[in-house]
């Protein structure tokens, strides 16, 4: 009948919560803060004498590599130090300053903020179903003339739209503040990455765009996971807790199971899609971008099937 009204109802509910405005404002403030801080503390000496700085860094790296080899640290520790060392050498030779900040470089540096956004998205997705069960409002909603799957789908769409909205806000804010403080332009600025011991020169803007796309896919999978947990548990705090635990403990778990042959078929090693962007350094071996995308598609479908099947059948006693 009026399916879109269901979605707009959910959207209105999301935006009627105070926390939603915090979720929107906080990333903007952090980005603004970092931009100002970076500008104020920028060491102009280092910027002009960057060659000297990088040479010193490499001396330090050399001793660290030697130490890592002596201590029998995991192999990837020494490997990543070596990559960094070689990148520096390449930078010196080709005169590519790592200290040159442009708006696109700023966007690349701010990429880790997306995990904060991931956290906010988890809170919203975990609460959107479980919260209504906990408060009992779900029964007022389910007695309307809509099949249950439509009501659940409207909630899923609203959550995805909210995730997309947060992500657009973050991208826009980083670009805007980066441009204001470090100047517009910089689309042609190169950066270095190492794959299989070889050094590549790439455009930062390419990296940023690819990174944004991949991150949004990660977001979507996170939403599906949290949404499933939200449907399986009646309490929103339990749902939020479980989803956060799975997402963050999942990454730690990857290190423990990385040597197992089945590790690449589990969810979490595949959740970090940006690992394919540079470094070429993967904790779990034998995976590629298309492999991970395939695995994520399978997991997402599984989560959604469970979510919708459970929701459709459940007796509501709230």
């Amino acid at each position, binding site marked *: *009948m*009026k399916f879109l*009204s*269901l979605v*707009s*109802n959910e959207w*209105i*509910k999301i935006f*009627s*919560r105070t926390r939603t405005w915090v979720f929107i404002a906080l990333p903007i403030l952090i980005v603004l803060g970092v931009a100002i801080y970076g500008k104020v503390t920028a060491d102009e000496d280092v910027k002009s004498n960057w060659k000297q700085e990088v040479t010193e860094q490499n001396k330090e790296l050399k001793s660290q590599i030697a130490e890592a080899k002596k201590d029998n640290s995991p192999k990837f520790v020494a490997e990543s130090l070596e990559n960094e060392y070689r990148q520096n050498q390449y930078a010196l030779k080709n005169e590519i300053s790592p200290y040159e900040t442009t708006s696109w470089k700023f966007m690349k540096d701010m990429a880790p903020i997306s995990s904060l956004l991931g956290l906010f998205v988890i809170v919203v997705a975990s609460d959107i179903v479980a919260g209504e069960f906990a*408060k*009992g*409002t779900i*029964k*007022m909603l*389910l*007695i*309307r*003339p*809509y*099949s249950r799957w439509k009501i659940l789908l409207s909630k899923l769409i609203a959550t995805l739209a909210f995730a997309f909205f947060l992500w657009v806000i973050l991208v826009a804010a980083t670009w805007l503040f980066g441009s204001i403080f470090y100047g517009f332009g910089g689309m042609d600025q190169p950066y270095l990455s190492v794959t299989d011991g070889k050094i590549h020169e790439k455009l930062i803007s390419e990296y940023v765009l690819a990174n944004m796309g991949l991150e949004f896919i990660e977001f979507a999978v996170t939403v599906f996971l949290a949404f499933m947990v939200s449907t399986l548990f009646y309490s929103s705090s339990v749902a939020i807790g479980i989803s956060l635990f799975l997402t963050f403990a999942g990454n730690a778990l990857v290190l423990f199971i990385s040597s197992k042959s089945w590790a690449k078929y589990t969810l979490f090693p595949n959740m970090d899609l940006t690992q394919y962007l540079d470094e070429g350094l993967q904790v779990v071996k034998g995976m590629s971008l298309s492999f991970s995308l395939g695995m994520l598609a399978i997991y997402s479908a599984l989560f959604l099937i469970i979510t919708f099947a459970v929701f459709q*059948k459940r*007796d*509501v*006693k709230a």
Partner: protein
Amino acid sequence: METVHTLELRNVTKKMKGKNVVDHLSFEVRKGEIFGLLGPNGAGKTTTIRMIVGLISMNGGEILVNGLDIRKNYEKAMEQIGAIVENPQMYDYLTGYKNLMQYARIMPGVTRKRIDEVVKLVELEQAIHKKVKTYSLGMRQRLGVAQALLHRPSLLILDEPTNGLDPQGMHDLRNYMRTLADQGTSIVVSSHILAEMELMCDRVAVIQHGKLIRIDNVTNVTDQAQARVHFLIEGGLPEAKLLLSEYAPEKAVEVSGKELIIEASTSQEIADINKRLIEAGFLVYGIQLKKKTLEERFLEMTGKGGGVNEVSIAGQ
């Protein structure tokens, strides 16, 4: 042609933990009727209501709303229902008006004018733009009634609607219900409070252990035939009881305190009994005609703990 009832339950059964919480329940609700579901807590009233509005699945039987099977025509059937299931939990971070907007948006044919109309009906004009978290229980209940009425349902379902209402609120609710019923809306109300049911319903179904014990017209309850006569007497109650038993052996006589209670009689009989008591030397201080309340009859019915067949269907 068969008449289509607003609501019809046929052998509706719900199993929970291997037990029939609702057991082959059948009844129908006519157009413009206020129908009560009466039973102690845990009798299956709320479960029945939740099955009607689709919150709980059925294990057997059929539910028809204006002839539409809710399992085959779920959305069409639900369009005709307005309901409050237990406490009406609203979004307390939204205002009353925004809560109503939530439902108005997704129901057919609800205009802003209609919202204002309903708000006026439940007398929430003063508070409608305040957040629901500031509302009293009675105000929430009234907002609940408002959301149930928004789309002019032909079947209104109210589960324990008087919870948290003050006497004035209860009185108002009964008045809305009667007005709606007169306009053709059928109403199903559940309660475990008998006095309330007596005041608001046309017919009452008594449910225990998920089974229908009986359905009664409420007006029957107040019939003369259900009345009892109380004689207030000083001294010698056992002898007086014997005297009455001789006079009317077919009637049950009870002693309660200083009262002698006998089942309803004609005015002539009452005069005769009085005369006999006085002639036998008893002092009669008072004679009272008391109607049997629904409560007493309810206790009679459920207290026996028997099945449907064991309960006498008096007054029909």
